[in-house]
């Protein structure tokens, strides 16, 4: 026995309550989603044919199990609506992640090159907007982008356009909203890797004859790749499942998968299909999640 083990027993007792909580409110609901995604739509309330009743024992369970069907998933594959929203989610997530990288990298780089005591302040300045409600941040952009909003007024005043541009309900507005909301998620991991980079490396590169730009491209950028990876995944993963931003800023003619789920659930009241969409969305997220997990692990091991 060691100190670690002396502490382990009471610590495990501490974990019991949160363990049960998460089992009840995370694991069980998740199981229900899987179950319902495999059941058939009914008009009744709740709008799905009953799951097995726990009281009826094994036979009922078996009967219920036989009733499970892949119909909902078949629907997902056969109906264009789902495939299109699946694809749109991917396209939107990839595009906005790339925009975020292009905008976020110079900012993170600028932060990392600040004098030490300004770096902390710059970091706080980047984090603080994250603390204000994200609905508010989207709303702020609706203010600016609307028909007689600030942006159109400025453009008109500068005679860049002759009549107000319809910004809202366009993909442009949506991308602005996404980039605005996720920028800190891109900047912070980039900054973290850039800030801990030894400046002597750059000096060594320049000492060995590389121009500053070459030194950046040959030394700084390759070394910042772990941060680039983390930033990309930290933005990509949540953007795929995004609902509010496309709902408020983009047009309604093509939907992201989060919107489709919402629509199936709240408007069409088709819970089984909504559940199937949820599972499909999760499947989409598994590869980037695995990648992110690996990246994190390598970071931890590399740090030792």
């Amino acid at each position, binding site marked *: *026995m*060691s*100190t670690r083990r*002396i502490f382990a027993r009471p610590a495990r007792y501490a974990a019991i309550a949160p363990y049960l909580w998460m089992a009840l409110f995370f694991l069980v609901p998740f199981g229900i989603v899987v179950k319902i995604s495999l059941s058939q739509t009914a008009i009744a309330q709740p709008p799905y044919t009953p799951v097995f009743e726990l009281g009826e024992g094994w036979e009922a369970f078996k009967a219920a199990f036989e009733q499970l069907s892949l119909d909902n998933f078949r629907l997902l594959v056969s109906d264009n609506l789902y495939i299109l929203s699946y694809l749109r989610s991917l396209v939107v997530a990839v595009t906005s992640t790339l925009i975020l990288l292009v905008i976020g990298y110079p900012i993170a780089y600028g932060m990392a090159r600040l004098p030490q005591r300004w770096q902390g302040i710059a970091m706080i300045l980047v984090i603080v907007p994250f603390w204000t409600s994200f609905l508010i941040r989207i709303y702020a952009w609706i203010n600016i982008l609307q028909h007689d909003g600030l942006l159109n007024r400025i453009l008109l005043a500068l005679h860049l356009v002759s009549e107000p541009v319809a910004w809202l309900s366009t993909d442009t507005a949506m991308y602005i909203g996404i980039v605005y909301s996720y920028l800190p998620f891109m900047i912070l991991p980039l900054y973290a890797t850039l800030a801990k980079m030894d400046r002597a490396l750059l000096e060594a590169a320049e000492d060995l004859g590389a121009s500053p730009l070459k030194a950046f491209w040959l030394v700084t950028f390759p070394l910042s790749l772990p941060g680039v990876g983390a930033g990309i995944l930290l933005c990509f993963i949540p953007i795929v499942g995004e609902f509010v931003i496309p709902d408020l800023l983009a047009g309604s003619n093509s939907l992201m998968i989060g919107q489709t789920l919402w629509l199936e659930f709240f408007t069409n009241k088709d819970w089984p299909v909504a559940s199937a969409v949820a599972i499909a969305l999760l499947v989409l997220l598994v590869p980037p999640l695995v990648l992110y997990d690996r990246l994190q692990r390598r970071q931890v091991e590399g740090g030792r």
Partner: protein
Amino acid sequence: MAEELAKTANHSTTEDTALRRATDMPLLRIEGVTKRFGNFTAVNALSLDVRAGEFFALLGPSGCGKTTLLRMLAGFETPDEGRVLLAGRDIAQVMPHERPVNMMFQNYALFPHLSVRDNIAFGLRRAGMARGEIATRVAEMVALVKLEGLEKRKPDQLSGGQRQRVALARSLARRPQVLLLDEPLAALDKKLRESTQAELMELQRRLGMTFIIVTHDQEEAMTMASRIGVMDAGRLAQVATPRDLYEAPASRWVAEFVGDVNLFEGQVISREQGRLKVTTREAGIITVAEPHQPVTKEIVTVAIRPEKIKLSRRGLASAVDALQAINRFEGEVAEINYLGGLTAYRIRLDNGAVVRSVMANTARLDVDGYGSSERVAAWFAPDDGVVLEQ
């Protein structure tokens, strides 16, 4: 439980000493203790006795198991095998908070949210001591480590040396039967370390307490400890007084670990009149005094400390030459390192071997120093060579 122990600890110096003297039992007896971490055996069937009032040092390279052994004495690790007897009671399985020993941590482990006073009083409060008594004891401890006036400071408002004193006072406050010190001076700079060594020794003598210190610094161990246990790969390589450790190392490993040494391996060719002749590859035939315990092996190693290898100019004092005829090698000075009080020479012998010699610089002017490439004779007395069988 803890309270009782703390109380007995208070009286331990008088009653227990008498008891122990009667039974002739050491205060601390470690018996065949083994500790494994997975496949790695940190401490391997180790046995050791420490008497009351000793200042005992565990010395060894990093990873030799000395810290693990200390942590087992404190109760932070439990031995896989063996017993740890403290005043006759096996405490191997006793929890740390129920042991009458205290530890001073390498990084001090001062509670950053508590003041100096509260840090020192922490253990006393846990022992359920009365308020007034605690105040008296804390004041006593503060005076002992000369921290008067700093009682209300937080650890981060103290210098490194002051923190070290708080840690010491905190671990002494409960008057433990044994005080364990894990590299207590490692974080201090050299000057402060030397003065603190003296203070620690003085404190230990005054309190008559048993100290067990872990250190990787042999000078520190030599200076402070009355006995030193040298550890290697989870075992005790030798337990001896500082002098014996240096002058009579038990093995080649110990001889090399403690201080600097010239080693010559060779075969015993004769023993007569208490003298052993060994023929070595590096230095030809050398003659050394036969050790008390008769040599059993044929192949032995002769160890000679560099300061015991004397140099003399060739051709000088030919009358002495006869005396020095044994263990006398000719060669030339290959390297000179001036170290202030000492000068270290490397002599390349004519047969190719290199020996090291250290000479004290007893005069300010460099009159008896040797020059580079100068021809010299290196010699040593037969009594200055130590025969090692392993």
